[in-house]
């Protein structure tokens, strides 16, 4: 699997198509969805390659679910195309969904039927062989003991698991999952991740839409980050992390004086004196020069530790950062290299388009101390 970041929108077919001698699992070009005055999806390009566990990230209302609905042929793009293994679900209908399974938003079932009956129905709609797999998939998601119970009495988590079971009936080569861990308790989330990991290990390409950053960080090797209907980054997660830049924290004998030195020193950027001490961004060469400068200024170094940006930090920079900060990471993500931006510490609200054509104003009041697993 190629590891380099690519500019969002740059054709990757040549790279991807050759992976296993078959068409790319998901290839979207210039996808647009407009609901009257609201632009829900704005020229999105996606490149999911065979074997990827591909994270599709974005705040609520960013256009993730609308994009997935278009990918599955549930809604018509206003512009652009999407292909699954080279087939267009809008033009080719169910034929384009062969080898593809998953769900958008919460999986839905007939509440008046049992789990087994629901799966029998779906197996009948899948055709040859699916019915024979019902017991197996129920066992995989550990719903066998409740298989005869009506789905109307199922908890949210059980329905999510039944959604996975329904997807597995199709023996998918591509699994499209929209927020599969939403509403699950911590154990349920852990188990869901383990299942997705196992499916990926067995060769299934996974397109995982989520705003659970730890989930994406744990599972995905490539990501697309979408904000206000546009892809602001697409590429390898490791590249995103690297391009997020190395930050440092400094504890000194005189933080006030040290901050003056930091700000005067070449190659040191975004120096701040925060709750946990001084922080700044720089490459190693400049950090070496800084230590000498601090010594020359009579400031003792108590601790100087590197800190890599977390996915959460990067996510907020890309989706909330305004002006230079957000643009810097976007530039890094899509062009490679460039200036490193500082961690955005923004709160605010963003008006975003919703799938049903309305507009929602959702507070994005996440601070940088939100739960997140650092990429180290």
């Amino acid at each position: 699997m190629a590891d380099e970041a690519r500019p969002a929108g740059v054709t990757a077919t040549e790279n991807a198509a050759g992976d296993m001698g078959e068409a790319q699992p998901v290839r979207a070009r210039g996808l647009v969805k407009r609901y009257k005055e609201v632009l829900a999806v704005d020229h999105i390009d996606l490149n999911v390659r065979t074997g990827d566990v591909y994270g599709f990230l974005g705040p609520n209302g960013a256009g993730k679910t609308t994009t997935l609905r278009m990918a599955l042929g549930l809604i018509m793009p206003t512009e652009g195309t999407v292909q699954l293994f080279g087939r267009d679900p809008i033009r080719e209908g169910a034929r384009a969904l062969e080898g593809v399974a998953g769900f958008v938003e919460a999986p839905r079932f007939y509440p008046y039927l049992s789990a087994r009956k629901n799966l029998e129905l779906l197996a009948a709609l899948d055709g040859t062989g699916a019915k024979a797999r019902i017991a197996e998939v129920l066992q995989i998601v550990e719903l066998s003991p409740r298989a005869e119970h009506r789905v109307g009495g199922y908890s949210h988590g059980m329905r999510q698991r039944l959604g996975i079971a329904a997807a597995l009936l199709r023996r998918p080569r591509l699994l499209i999952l929209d927020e599969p861990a939403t509403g699950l308790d911590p154990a349920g989330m852990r188990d869901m991740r383990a299942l997705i990991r196992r499916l990926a290990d067995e060769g299934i390409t996974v397109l995982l839409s989520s705003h659970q950053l730890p989930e994406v960080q744990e599972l995905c090797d490539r990501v697309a980050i979408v904000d206000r209907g546009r892809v602001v980054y697409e590429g390898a997660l490791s590249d995103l992390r690297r391009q997020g830049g190395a930050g440092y924290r400094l504890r000194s004998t005189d933080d006030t004086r040290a901050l003056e030195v930091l700000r005067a020193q070449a190659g040191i950027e975004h120096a701040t004196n925060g709750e946990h001490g001084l922080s700044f961004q720089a490459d190693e060469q400049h950090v070496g020069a800084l230590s000498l400068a601090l010594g020359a200024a009579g400031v003792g170094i108590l601790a100087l530790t590197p800190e890599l940006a977390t996915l959460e930090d990067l996510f907020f920079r890309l989706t909330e950062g305004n002006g230079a900060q957000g643009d810097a990471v976007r530039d890094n993500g899509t062009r490679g290299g460039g200036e490193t931006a500082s961690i955005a510490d923004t709160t605010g609200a963003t008006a975003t388009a919703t799938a049903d054509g309305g507009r929602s104003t959702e507070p994005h009041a996440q601070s940088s101390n939100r739960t997140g697993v650092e990429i180290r």
Partner: protein
Amino acid sequence: MSSATAAPPVAPPATAPRAIAHARRPSTLTVWRWELRKLVSQKRTYLGLGLAVLLPLIFVVVQNLRHDHGHGGSIFATQITQSGLATPVLMLEFQAYFMLPLIAALVAGDIVAAEDGNGTLKTILTRSVDRGQVLGAKTLAALTYGTTAVFLSAVVATIAGVASWGFHHITTLSGSVVSASEGLLLVFAANACYLIPLLTVACIGVLLSTATRNSTAAVVGTIGLVILLYIVQGIPGLEGIQPYLLTEQFHSWHGLLRTPTDWAPIWHSAWVCALYAIPSLFAAYLVFLRRDVAGG
């Protein structure tokens, strides 16, 4: 999934795309069978069928309790106690104008919209069936339900009538007397003939169900249309369009109960109903094919 690592291995993904590409996909009849199974599993399905059964039973019980059977108007009303076969004809007469269209609309108006509202439409549209197959199967299921309601009512009315007043010859609308067995055949032929306008109502219900995405709006809209046509039928000066109104076709089956059989109103009903049903289904197909499925 508490111990996902201990779970059985997931079947490997198909690595032969060609094999998948040629996998046999389900037929529309398979989808239709499952639509019927869904209907059978829902309590509300039995509401309409219950009405179709209950009315003949109430009618027969009340007539058994009455001593004066002097009905005016219909030739079959005067034969209630003379032949049990008069009961299903009278019940068809009573129910043809509103009750049976209502029962047909209950399911036809709900059959697409309910799935849209519950989000299950997206579930079935991401399997191996095309949108046209899904709509075709749903339409067939709505028609099946309407047909079932009509014949269930006819069977119950016939059994109750014959049990109360015997299996005897009956006099037709033109005054000819036909044997009991021929009368029975005519009763069911008349019900079959009535299906033409009734299933047209169901087709309109499917269109409204598809277009409105709202069960209540579709059911009320379908019945509202029937009521509107009745009103138009009664407006002086509009007599010229009466033969082409859907509601006018609800009694075309009378032609079968004449001797010799009067086929003219039946053929007329067939093509007039086609003018309502075919565009409705075509419009429903176009809407369903192009619509965004974003519910649920």
